[in-house]
């Protein structure tokens, strides 16, 4: 039951989220809301030059949005900003692909578990919520550096 949507990996991340809890220091944060269901997330990023030094988050949401934020933390913390943008683009592509896009595990890691979510339009926003907030936060952090 629910196999295609609720992959084991997703349930694991949901039950044991990584990176949860807002942390200091941070350079910028972004708060995003899913108007359909009222889910909210705050994502903080700390940059160290080109490096994503930390990503932390907090919020309320369903298993998909919480697990997705946990995967995001795991995939992007410690990498470069440009790598983060690539991963984010690949994740967005996967989510908007209506189940037609083949995910690349090298790029997306545990993120490939979300492939099934793309077939549930109502849940795509849940999966993307933290990623959109992350993108915003990074843009803000970089804008402030200038």
């Amino acid at each position, binding site marked *: 039951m*629910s196999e295609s949507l609720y992959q084991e990996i997703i349930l694991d991340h949901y039950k044991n989220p990584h990176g949860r809890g807002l942390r200091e220091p941070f350079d910028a944060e972004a708060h995003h809301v899913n108007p359909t*269901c*009222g*889910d909210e997330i705050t994502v903080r990023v700390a940059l160290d030059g080109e490096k994503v030094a930390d990503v932390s988050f907090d919020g*309320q*949401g369903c298993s998909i949005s919480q697990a997705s934020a946990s995967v995001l933390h795991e995939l992007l913390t410690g990498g470069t900003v440009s790598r983060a943008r690539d991963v984010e683009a690949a994740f967005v592509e996967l989510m908007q692909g209506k189940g037609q896009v083949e995910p690349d595990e090298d790029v997306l890691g545990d993120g490939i578990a979300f492939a099934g979510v793309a077939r549930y339009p109502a*849940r795509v926003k*849940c999966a993307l919520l933290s990623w959109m907030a992350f993108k915003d936060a990074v843009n803000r952090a970089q804008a402030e550096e200038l």
Partner: protein
Amino acid sequence: MAEQMPSPLDVDRVRKDFPILERRLAGDRALVYLDSANTSQKPRPVLDALTEHYERHNANVARAVHQLGEEATSAYEGARDKIAAFIGAPTRSEVLFTKNASEALNLVANTMASGLAEDPRYRLEPGDEIVITEMEHHSNIVPWQLAARRTGATLRWFGLTEDGRLDIAGLRELINPRTKIVSLVHQSNILGTVNPVAHVVERAREVGALVLLDGAQSVPHMPVDVTELGVDLLAFTGHKLCGPTGIGVLWGRGEVLDGLPPFLGGGEMIETVAMDGSTFAPIPHKFEAGTPPIAQAVGLGAAVDYLTGLGMTSVREHDRAITAYALDRLHGVDGVSVIGPDSMVDRGATVSFTVDGIHPHDVGQVLDEQGVAVRVGHHCARPVCVRYGIPATTRASFYLYTTNAEIDALVDGIEQVKRFFG
């Protein structure tokens, strides 16, 4: 076993009138449709009326001297008669067709905010107050926020009690001589609460304020008589009332509708048009600009006939029986809390609840995998969620075709949800 109230409806026969209830979902699941507060399903006579209209009588209305035009016009205006009778309107011309309940509510807010009304009773100005409630649907909040912003009037609201009722303790202060209009929901689409309209009307009368009732959830579910209620205006929507999408109704007392300035301009709402100015038709046409939802009015007329045939009192009693059964069964499920009145007093067939530690999205999704269709989220009533400190709810809502077996399927489904995320 839950206690049983008898339903006056022959539900098995009723269900045969709704073709979609035979639908098999993916994986050959049976459909358990518990989302009627969102939109209701449509009985065969409504679908037949639509098809018959398009296949035999389709023409534009109020314009044509030809036979099809006359048939279409009399079908459209005949629907107005049926709606007027259904809600006890004293005059057919007080029934306006809109595209949905939201437009009906916006019509009132918008015309009062336009500054075009001659009579100050129908014109919002700085210092005026508008009163709504914390349990309104967004469609009865946002129009008033926009109206307040445009006019400088002040928006105020009734709060809610812990058990999901309107907090009317401050009634006399909240509705006061500065109040121009009170706009409130008859039955909450998230809590199921049925509001004490008579109290509000009485106080509004004392101070000379208008009362607009949002009947989107009440008109489909109980006998509603505008004369008995004593309100000035009533908004509701076709698609929750066994009717088609694309149609809503605003009823208003003739004097009030006459006093409101025009809303949308064009088409048949005019008396005479010159380039340098126009005069307007009497109600109802004054508020029906452009080609109206003709086939949809015909369909809504058929829906009202269908419901009248069963009897709205029977529909309400069936609702009550199902709701009592549902509340009773949900009480038996560990971790489930009902948001809204937890008894049968002044409440309708809509039950919102939370499941401990499991987000409504996940509840809804796993229910869907079992064929049980509920709504999850803030149900276009986010302030209610904020008030009760929850992000969202799961909502099961019932109608004349809902069976006890479907409630059982819901309860089994919730147990499954708990096992899955446990």
